[in-house]
């Protein structure tokens, strides 16, 4: 057998064997039911604690993708968005804040509410998540924060019991 043929056969076998654990875990993940998304978990939390109606904020031409929720906190009508994929800088939440003059954005992560996105804390958590979740046969959403868009003079949404919100 030619040495080049021997090499490529060996290389193909090694690569295929090394890919096997990923393929098997992928099959297992496909077979397990997906847990509620962060968007749905946020809706359930807001419905439970806000005491008022929770309505979806949709995006896209067919308005089928739910990207956030409008809810009532005390006397205020606020909105909440799960953080957008990394590198997209919560564009939709920013558009919502820009549409209402005087609105401000707060960020909720691990039960704490702050004025700035938890970039570095979240980055380390994502690194840890990617290292650990790859070994899990379950589907798990990566960690993320929640963006609150609050009208001027409205602070009630910050005082919701965010420590009970477990999806971030």
């Amino acid at each position: 057998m030619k040495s080049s043929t021997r090499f490529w056969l060996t290389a193909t076998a090694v690569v295929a064997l090394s890919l096997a654990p990923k393929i098997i875990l992928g099959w297992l993940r496909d077979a397990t039911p997906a847990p509620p998304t962060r968007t749905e978990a946020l809706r359930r939390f807001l419905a439970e604690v806000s005491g008022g109606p929770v309505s979806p904020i949709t995006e896209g031409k067919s308005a089928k993708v739910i990207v956030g929720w409008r809810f009532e906190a005390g006397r205020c009508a606020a909105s909440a968005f799960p953080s957008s994929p990394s590198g997209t800088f919560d564009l939709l939440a920013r558009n919502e804040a820009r549409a209402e003059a005087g609105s401000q954005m707060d960020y909720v992560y691990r039960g704490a509410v702050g004025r700035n996105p938890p970039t570095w804390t979240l980055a380390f958590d994502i690194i840890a998540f990617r290292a650990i979740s790859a070994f899990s046969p379950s589907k798990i959403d990566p960690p993320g924060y929640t963006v609150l868009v609050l009208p001027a003079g409205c602070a009630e949404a910050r005082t919701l019991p965010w420590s009970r919100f477990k999806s971030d």
Partner: protein
Amino acid sequence: MAYSDGGFRGMAIAQSVQPAAQTRALGRPQIYAIGILALIANAIAATVASTVAAQSLGAALAAGLGLSWAFWLSFALTVRLALVSQAQPTDRGDWLAASAAVLAAALPAGPVSAVAATALGLWLMASTRFAPQLRASGMALVAISVHLLWGRLMMLFFAAPIAAVDARLVGLLTHTAVEGNTVKFLQTGHRLAILQACTSVQNASIALMLMIAIIRTFQPRPRASEWLYVGGAFLLVVAINEVRLSLMTRNVEMFELVHGPVGATVINLIITFVGIAGAALAVRREILD
């Protein structure tokens, strides 16, 4: 392979008396090439799988299986560099390193493969007993791992300020208002939001990875002067990207043209061309000889 020193004849004679068993065994170039193949294949497996799942196989192939054509060319050149390196017998260290690479590749986490690719690349670069081409393949492998992992990790932390710098540069070109990572359109009230995928750093990393792979192919031993060309290519890609972003802010029609499929194809071709041209300039003597 070319031996430029006077030891060629001695080596040729030595090779002719090697026992037949040696020619059947995998040599140093081959086992490290296998390690490189296993690591990169596993590092990109999730990206390829999700691309194929999201569209037809034909469309996925046309889209580069979720990766740029500059990546695939860099990958191929890196493996080739390892394979064409001088045939050398293996020792225990080679088998340990290659085995560790394959074991790391077999772990379910793709990022672990990219980390291991960095480690293997640095191992190849550092060892003076390896042939120049094999050491050069290590540098190209590190460049690929930077593109696949370390650059993206850096973006987890610094995407916002990098996008803000891009926005500031675009604002200087267009003389329009800038707020964070957004730039006001010239002719309408819209705002352009510069996201991570459109930043200059993200685009430049692709050209740089390709440049390093091509330069190492023609000149395995690094030269100080080549970093001038690498730096120049980086600045050129940044400038091209700023012009592209500025064009997008003219009006909505221009945004949709430049940001749409046609514009994306054009910018990918330009960035690939910059990488190839920059590399060709850096190794023009080796190409023309």
